[in-house]
């Protein structure tokens, strides 16, 4: 198993189910960092900042459904794999709908023991996209560090206009995030 940390975002409001899902994910990869949301606002607050390798989502949540979560992920996290883990996704129409909307797969909670196998397949399928995201992220990190170091150095020296330049660069750095 890879030593890379596997980042998993779980959208689940039932504590018992959450722990069961975590346990199965650890069987796939023990080097894991989780982030969890239990409702809509927590999901919106956390998921894009977390930049997960995969999202595992229940279908029925207190104030949203899984399809809304899937659409949000597709809008904000591009091709990040998204898997439904649910107790009710058991009619063919709904299954077809999830796939057509861009889910990477689905699993019934009764079959949770099959999650490691499903994760293996999904990760395998999305390796190229994950590598691309990693490269993009590393380029962003290197550029941010160069910018921040330049701002710090600029603040150490004084010449006419240096404060304004530092302030402008700071705004650019903040805007890049």
């Amino acid at each position, binding site marked *: 198993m890879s030593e890379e*940390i596997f980042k998993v975002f779980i959208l689940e409001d039932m504590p018992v189910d959450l722990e069961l899902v975590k346990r199965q994910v650890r069987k796939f990869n023990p080097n*894991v*960092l*989780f982030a969890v949301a239990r409702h809509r606002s927590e999901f919106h607050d956390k998921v894009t900042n977390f930049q997960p390798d995969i999202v595992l989502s229940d279908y029925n949540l207190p104030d949203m459904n899984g399809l809304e979560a899937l659409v949000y992920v597709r809008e904000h996290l591009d091709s990040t794999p998204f898997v439904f883990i649910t107790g009710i996704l058991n009619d063919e129409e709904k299954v077809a709908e999830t796939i057509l909307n861009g889910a990477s797969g689905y699993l019934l909670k009764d079959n949770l023991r099959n999650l490691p196998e499903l994760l293996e397949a999904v990760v395998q399928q999305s390796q190229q996209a994950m590598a691309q995201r990693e490269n993009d*992220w590393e380029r962003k*990190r290197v550029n941010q*560090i160069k910018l*921040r170091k330049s701002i710090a150095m600029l603040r150490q020296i004084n010449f006419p206009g240096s404060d304004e330049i530092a302030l402008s660069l700071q705004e650019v750095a903040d805007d*890049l*995030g």
Partner: protein
Amino acid sequence: MQGQNLKQINDTKISELLTHAGLSVLLITSTWDGHGIIMRTLLDGLSNQYSKVFFGVADVEDSPRICKVFNVTNPPGLLLVRDGELIERAMGAVGVSGIVDLIERNS
């Protein structure tokens, strides 16, 4: 100066942080990060008060893997992890009362 309870973390030690039972507080900063330098001093003091909490500090330039895992490109970043779950993520300057509040809320 760094107290005994604030540990320097790098990419090779990230698994220790994720498998630590209980609450961990990680600061990602750098020598040129003014706010982070102050926060590091604050954490050093707090690490002596909260003996059950693991306190770590990582350098943004030396630890690309840690930065990737916690999605931090722009230090300082303060991360709270409990039993392998990221429970709080605060970017930018946080004062001592803010840090204490985060720890107390999640202890």
